[in-house]
């Protein structure tokens, strides 16, 4: 039985196929301006017995592809347990939202929190800040790790933070230090959210932002515990969706 999970996020669409409880296939594409067309292209030539959707585009996928859906919360919880069966807490930071999820010992979601309506503290925030410092995303993290000191960034609003960065650059601050300050501001917010839902147990860091090494390091420092990150944390939701698709039909 091959079960597919598709995670239609704001920035990327992720697809995973699971067979015999192992990952059989991964695919990914940019969401772009027409998510359903992008999803259709991603599914081309793919063989699967069942499919389940998650992510912000799940509602439209349900209509267009007549497929069941679950929320990102449930999908990320299931995906995190697939990589780390002992996990009870998940921090997911995606393109336009972030969430903290607490599970019980059998992996059922018991509490969660999501960021409010704007993209503060998400992948989009980091992307725009990197650009305003003239870094690509990889440089943004690696340069921040080389900073000698961090500069406190006060604005969590993407628009205000960008003007704060502009004035720091104009003042002649080293952009590495600014980059570290920006990472720290996101970590403070995310760690606070995580601590509100759970205070113990291993933490899995998922979503595209978990690929950022500076975020990983700072998160470990702040939480004072090791953080579990899958090889490709961005796929966590899609894998969770594929596993849940299998559960539905008993595969």
């Amino acid at each position, binding site marked *: 039985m091959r079960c597919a999970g598709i995670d239609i996020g704001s920035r990327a669409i992720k697809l995973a196929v699971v067979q015999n409880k192992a990952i059989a296939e991964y695919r990914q594409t940019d969401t772009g301006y027409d998510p359903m067309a992008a999803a259709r292209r991603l599914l081309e030539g793919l063989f699967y017995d069942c499919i389940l959707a998650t992510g*912000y585009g799940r*509602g439209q996928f349900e209509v267009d592809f007549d497929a069941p859906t*679950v*929320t*990102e*919360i*449930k999908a990320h919880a299931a995906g995190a347990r697939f990589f780390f069966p002992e996990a009870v807490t998940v921090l997911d930071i995606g393109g336009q*939202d972030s969430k903290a999820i607490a599970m019980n010992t059998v992996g*059922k*979601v*018991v*509490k*969660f929190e*999501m960021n*409010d*309506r704007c993209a503060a503290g998400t992948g989009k925030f980091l992307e725009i800040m990197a650009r305003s410092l003239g870094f690509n995303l990889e440089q943004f993290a690696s340069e921040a790790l080389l900073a000698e000191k961090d500069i406190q960034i006060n604005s969590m609003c993407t628009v205000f933070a960008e003007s704060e960065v502009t004035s720091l650059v104009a003042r002649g601050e080293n952009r590495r230090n600014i980059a570290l300050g920006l990472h720290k501001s996101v970590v403070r917010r995310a760690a606070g959210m995580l601590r509100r839902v759970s205070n113990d147990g291993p933490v899995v860091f998922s979503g595209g932002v978990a690929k950022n090494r500076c975020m990983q390091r700072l998160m470990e420092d702040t939480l004072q515990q090791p953080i579990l990150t899958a090889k490709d944390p961005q796929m966590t939701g899609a894998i969770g969706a594929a596993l849940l698709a299998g559960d539905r039909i008993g595969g």
Partner: protein
Amino acid sequence: MSEDYRSMWQSLGLDLVAHDALLGVLGKFYQDIYLAQNNRPEGMGYFDFVMSEVHGLRIKELLDEKKAGRKIIGTYCVFVPEEIALAGNATMVGLCAGADFATEEVEKILPRNTCALIKSTFGFKLGKVCPYLEASDMIVGENTCDGKKKAYESLGPLVSNLYVMDIPQMKSDQGRALLKAEYQRFKQAVEKLTGVTIDPPRLKAAIETVNNKRKAIHRLSKLRQADPAPISGLDALLANQVFFYDNPQRFTDSVNKICDELEKRVAEKQGVFPSGTPRILMSGCPMAVPNWKLPWIVETSGAVIVGEESCVGERGTRNLVSTSGNTVDELMDAIVDRYFQVDCAIFTPNPDRLNHVEEMVKAYKADGVIHYGLQFCAPYLMESIPVAKALEEKKIPTLRIETDYSMEDVGQLKTRVEAFIEMLR
């Protein structure tokens, strides 16, 4: 709505273009949210009619009452006793406060960080689109939260007939004495407005009329304890909303008629959603027409709302006024006793509200509580944290939502509500 009403609206000083736009949005909203539901009780047809005529026939009725010498009293809060208005031969109506309107104009008078309900009150006045407000002979403001209290200072100059009632903030003897003094002052103001002296038979009859209205809602609420739920939360909310607008007698009859129908449904184990559908108790800020956003999200995400711990709901309608008194003073005391139990978050401390939420969870067999707080509503948002904590300690899953009247956060709210419902399954 028919052309016949245009001259009526014009005579009330409404902005016809803006008002048409409002009715257009309201109609579309009602269509998409209410009429799109399945398995609705037939009796809801009455409420569909009421909503289609909410600015039409009902306003005409009020204007006809005015022509016959009756006075109309507009209010914004469940602390204003309808019994006193009715006893003074006046009709009481709730005023519009459930949609954003004329926001730019409002923000010239109120800070941006004011809750949507207060902003809406001003939007309907400044935008000239609330016929209830324009038809009112007296508008009653009440010192509940700081936002409303200060906003009435700014509303005063915009209207000619604002009356402000003070409300206690503590459930103490002094607090009760204040409420009693304020209700007596209100009684005198009503008597002055209508020229009617409120005597025991009038007051007793008014108490009975309002009690009957509440009893009908109590009956409706009790039927919602059944699984499957015989009526949607949206439809029950609408009945609770119309409670504030409609002719009391007709409202009571219409709700009782729905209850007759629902009793049959319950006996036949028929429901609006399948048995076993996750059951949600809503708790928090009031939802005025047409603020149906959150209930609509909940009931299109696989759950059913079985109760509202809200002023537009059980907090507002529970408890009857005793009719055992024989003098005006005894009956006024009974009114004070009933209203002083309303556990609004403006009271400190306010343990009764948490107890009531827990009672409702048990009575309505709710699987979880969604706490609805309006952005910038300090009393309810502050209370939501200890309330959620206390409920979670009792293993009652709770989701805190903070939102306003805009639709921009529907996608995010839907994800949170769906994830919460997944948790309950």
